[in-house]
């Protein structure tokens, strides 16, 4: 009430705040605790990698942040406001690339431009022109230039995953949620896309939350790495990656890097028991 007339605080609220957030699926005997009360903050422009054993609740956190599910307890704020407020432009790459089967790859990737402001506003007018070029350019960057007019089922697993990534990036999101976006790709394609993603990140500085199983991927890309325990998941370690950005792909062979990943490895190994 009174605060509404006060000037905005100078330091903006963190991009993501989870306050003692927990998620329990189902009830009774089959109830599954996907996330024990967890607290996590991410500043705007931060790049956080989330690692942890299978089934520990990583995707659940992403789904919470993107407001696809509501927490069983606790609170989630995006930029200081309720997640449902949808003030942030979210780009999400799902773990399982869910392309709409009735749309071609091009149309699938174009979807966010049709829904999200400010692109939406000029979507009808611009349809044939600029947006299409934009989509094609992005597809070309991930090596899918020739498949713009194919349907999802005509693509291989790795190709779908790349299209999925494009859909998360096409609308310049403020908040990028990536759930194992490179899992089905070979090492070389993967490294290429790491670099693409790093450039994009440094260029536009979105807030990025990346789920991955690849510690090198986490180390190469992120500024912070959070490790989660096995189910029921919670965050057991939160480390900054100090190496300066941009990083060269060669960095992963430096002793500093290897040491860091080894450290994480051991940590995870301990947690698993």
């Amino acid at each position, binding site marked *: 009430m009174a605060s509404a007339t006060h000037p905005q605080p100078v330091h903006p609220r963190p991009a993501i705040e989870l306050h003692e957030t927990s998620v329990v699926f189902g009830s009774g005997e089959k109830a599954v605790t996907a996330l024990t009360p967890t607290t996590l903050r991410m500043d705007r422009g931060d790049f956080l990698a989330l690692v942890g054993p299978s089934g520990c609740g990583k995707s659940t956190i992403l789904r919470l942040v993107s*407001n696809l599910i509501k927490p069983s307890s606790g609170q989630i704020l995006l930029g200081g406001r309720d997640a449902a407020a949808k003030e942030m432009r979210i780009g999400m790459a*799902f773990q399982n690339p869910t392309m709409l089967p*009735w749309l071609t790859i091009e149309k699938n990737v174009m*979807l966010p431009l049709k829904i999200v402001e400010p692109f939406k506003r000029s979507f009808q007018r611009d349809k044939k022109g600029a947006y299409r070029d934009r989509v094609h350019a992005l597809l070309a960057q991930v090596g899918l230039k020739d498949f713009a007019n194919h349907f999802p*089922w005509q693509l291989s697993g790795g190709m779908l995953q790349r299209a999925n990534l494009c859909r998360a990036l096409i609308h310049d999101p403020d908040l990028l949620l990536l759930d194992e976006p490179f899992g089905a790709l070979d090492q070389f394609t993967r490294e290429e896309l790491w670099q693409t993603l790093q450039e994009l990140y440094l260029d536009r500085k979105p807030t990025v939350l990346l789920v991955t199983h690849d510690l090198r991927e986490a180390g190469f890309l992120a500024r912070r790495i959070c490790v989660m325990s096995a189910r029921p998941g919670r965050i057991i370690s939160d480390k900054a990656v100090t190496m300066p950005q941009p990083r060269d792909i060669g960095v992963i062979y430096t002793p500093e890097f290897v040491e860091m990943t080894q450290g994480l490895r051991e940590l995870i190994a301990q947690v698993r028991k």
Partner: protein
Amino acid sequence: MNENIKIRIMSLSLIVGFFVIWEVLCIMLGVSDLILPRPSEIAVTLWTRFPVLWPHILQTLYATLTGFSLGVIIGVSIGVLIGTSRVAYGVAYPLLVGFSSIPKVAVVPILVLWFGSGTTPAILTAMIICVFPIVVNISTGLATTEPDLEDVLKTLGASKREVLWNVGLPRTMPYFFASLKVAITLSFVGAVLSETVASNRGIGNVMMTASSNFQVSLVFAGLFILAIMGVALYAFFSFLEARVTGWATRGKDIAVT
């Protein structure tokens, strides 16, 4: 392609076979043409009476298509409502099911008393009768839409309307087209029904007159016309369906060299 033509020929010959069997059975069993005329008799009647029948055909087609179009609009609207709102589901479904269990033949006289005899009740009957199958299929299609697909839109902050428009409805198309096939046949039934009860024109009226004059082969000619119109419209929707829902019935098209 070649395969396709083979199948088409086979289908056609089996359909022709059906009529041949009908003809032969009628002759062999000595079925009276009062009970079941032979296809050849029906064809002759159809041919000789066609000029007389033509305006009636147009009338029935007009009433059916108008009623059907209205029915589709209403059916889709209610279906979307029921498929997306649980209260609407709870209210509308029982009322609709109850209403649909009522034979339309009991409703037509009421319509006639309200709107007078002729085209209006025929259109309304054609409309009423085809709403329910569309509602059921649309709402089932929406209710069974994979949450994963909706999630794609939801993360983008899409409104309910946008989710419906971009995911719910496209995904429901196979259900929708299935219901259209049922609905169009029901629309014909509805229009004809109303014409039998009160109208001076239309195939229903022709059939009524014919049957009271014991012109059984003219009655069957009327039925044939209805069947042919039904099949023609079905073919049209099938064509549309193949365009629109091709994604759902994808085959494996591997080039063989």
